[in-house]
């Protein structure tokens, strides 16, 4: 049975698209046929992060308007042949999406794919609403700062009251917390909320912590999902998250300040 995953946050710039690209790639690399959809119509970015921007012919809106078939619009990833990207339209806005249209596209994808990752736009308006509406699982991407945490909380409220599962009184969406751009050093200095602080406020199952890492920026610039950079801390953190989502037990990493530990050990700066 196919599962629809929404990557959402409420707030912008917290790492939704980076996360969508990474987990979609992670799932595909583990042998699951996966599609990733960019719901950010008008501000598309996923194609850049996935490095397929020069191969976009048709997009999500074309498929919804039946101007192209799904197969025409899906772009096969250059690194993994089990991963497909459905890019957003850059020349339209969110009103081009309709609930029936999105539902129809997702139903068609479900016939052929194991996982469908929906990269939500920021905000709580139409685009974000449609991205989460049909979801089975939600990855709530949060930065360790108060405004991001509050926006995530708001989004969790919307997931539990405005989704299809909520409206039809089905089993609720599985909600997972992904804490991104985490810096243990800054937590120690009191400049950032800790994992415990965030979990205390959101009381949500923590799927993983992604450390603040320059490998993320490098990956974005080169158009390869950071999960493929197996040496990087962020890449490993995303690999852990995919493994945990698939049911594996993995201890949490990147939460403690290792540098701090050595610093203390050697008593120097």
């Amino acid at each position: 049975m196919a599962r629809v995953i929404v990557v959402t946050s409420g707030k912008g710039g917290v790492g939704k698209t980076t996360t969508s690209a990474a987990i979609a790639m992670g799932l595909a690399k583990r042998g699951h046929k996966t599609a990733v959809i960019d719901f950010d119509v008008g501000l598309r970015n996923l194609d850049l992060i996935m490095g397929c921007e020069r191969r976009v012919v048709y997009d999500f809106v074309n498929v919804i308007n039946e101007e192209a078939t799904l197969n025409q619009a899906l772009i096969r990833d250059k690194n993994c042949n089990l991963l497909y990207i459905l890019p957003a339209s850059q020349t339209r806005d969110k009103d081009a999406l309709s609930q029936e249209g999105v539902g129809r596209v997702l139903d068609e994808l479900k016939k052929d794919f194991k996982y469908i990752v929906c990269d939500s736009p920021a905000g709580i308006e139409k685009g974000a609403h449609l991205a989460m509406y049909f979801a089975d699982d939600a990855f709530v991407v949060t930065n360790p700062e108060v405004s991001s945490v509050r926006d995530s909380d708001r989004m969790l409220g919307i997931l539990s009251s405005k989704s299809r599962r909520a409206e039809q009184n089905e089993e609720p969406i599985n909600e997972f917390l992904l804490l991104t751009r985490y810096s243990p050093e800054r937590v120690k200095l009191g400049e950032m909320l800790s994992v415990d602080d965030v979990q205390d406020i959101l009381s949500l199952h923590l799927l993983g912590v992604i450390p603040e890492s320059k490998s993320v920026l490098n990956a974005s610039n080169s158009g390869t999902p950071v999960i493929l950079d197996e040496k990087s801390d962020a890449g490993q953190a995303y690999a852990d998250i995919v493994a945990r989502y698939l049911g594996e037990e993995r201890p949490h990493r990147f939460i403690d300040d290792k540098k701090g530990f050595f610093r203390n050990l050697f008593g120097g700066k």
Partner: protein
Amino acid sequence: MSQDSKKKSNLINALEFKTSTFSVPVLMLASDDMGLLEQLLAQKIKQAPEFFKNSPLVLDLQEINKQGFIVDIIALVDLIRKAGLILVGVRAGNVLQNKQSLDLGVPVYAAQGRESIVESQRLTKFQVETPPTIESDKPQEIKVTVPTTLITHPIRSGQRIYAAGDIVIMAQVSAGAEIIAEGNIHVYSTLRGRALAGVLGDIDARIFCFDLQAELISIAGNYKVSEDLGASVRNKPVQIYLKDKSLIIKDIVLHH
């Protein structure tokens, strides 16, 4: 019994007058500023839109007349009707006000304290409860038991829950969430949002929570914001109740 007399008795039974007591909210005004009144009324209704929708209402003019304000009854009635309330009476009006009311088809009641048709014993700003009847031949009262609302999932920022009676929440209430109840509020977890108990004027309503970090707490319209909550009452189990119109916050654990 002859056919004729049978018919007669049937006819008698076909119509009967009885006296009944109803609970009707009474709107007390203490200003003649129509703009302000409209704004305040809209605010009140927003707190409990389901309750106020098509609710009967008695307009009390005692305070207005006492303070010598001159109000346009026609405009006032219009304002109330536009707000979605159904005016079923004007109370304590003067001769002119009563005439204007009757012209608009609104019944007129005498001021409280004197003989009045609509009985209002406990007058808070909005009266709801019907006092218990002692004598059995007094008008029957309709007793409605409102079930307690039970919620087991977290109430997230931006969510708003209204309970017509008591509400019991077995999970946290996030900052930016709002719990509104006509009765008591119980939160068996952290209360970070707003909690408004006794919103229809029940001064005996209480708020109970396991961990007080609320943005706002209110009982029957008497409120405190986060800033007013001292460190001595925060982050622990407390109960909040009203005493002489001020909110009392006390530890829930009683040490004997």
